[in-house]
């Protein structure tokens, strides 16, 4: 069974701060990991994905994430956030069984 855990339901930072959104997963096979962003009342938009190779993955808008097999983690980071980054961020894990599991999301609030 795949599970995805996002330990922080809410994260508040100021514009220009760096941020890390945490994601831990459990899965017994080969997997791919993704991050999505959801602005209020909208659908999800893809940010980045890891499947193999370089564990640091660069995404859109300055986001990047690092895969760690030893920690079972795929944390999302951004060096300098903008107010428009305020949204809910979802970590997702998928395997070879056609299913993709989402975490419960982290609400990021960026204050001016």
């Amino acid at each position, binding site marked *: 069974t795949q599970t995805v855990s996002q330990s922080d339901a809410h994260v508040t930072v100021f514009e220009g701060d760096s941020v890390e959104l945490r994601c831990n997963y459990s899965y017994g096979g080969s997997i791919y990991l993704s991050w999505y962003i959801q602005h209020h009342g909208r659908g999800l938009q*893809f940010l980045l994905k890891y499947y193999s190779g370089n564990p640091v993955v660069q995404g859109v808008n300055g986001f990047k994430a690092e895969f760690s097999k030893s920690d079972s983690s795929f944390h999302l980071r951004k060096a300098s956030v903008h107010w428009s980054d305020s949204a809910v961020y979802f970590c997702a894990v998928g395997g070879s069984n*056609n299913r993709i599991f989402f975490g419960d999301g982290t609400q990021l609030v960026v204050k001016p």
Partner: protein
Amino acid sequence: NSKVIQTPRYLVKGQGQKAKMRCIPEKGHPVVFWYQQNKNNEFKFLINFQNQEVLQQIDMTEKRFSAECPSNSPCSLEIQSSEAGDSALYLCASSRQSSGNTLYFGEGSRLIVV
């Protein structure tokens, strides 16, 4: 802007009424997923299709939920007899492959059951 088109954006139904939502996947994407997202942001996988065939689905034991993806027509998700607990955002996503690929989401259909 999303190329997955979901209609309607909002629908309000009384308990016991039928609710139907439609989804046009992105062109060239044979795989379609339906998810239910509740007010706590929790996702529940409902069903996915590859072309017209069901790949996986939850155990819709109450049989109130049905879905299809006919050829040359939008995919659809229908709730036969809506209940208050069905109030949620229903998200459709499409993908090039059944596993390993990025999901492209529509804007969702928000169902409110009163």
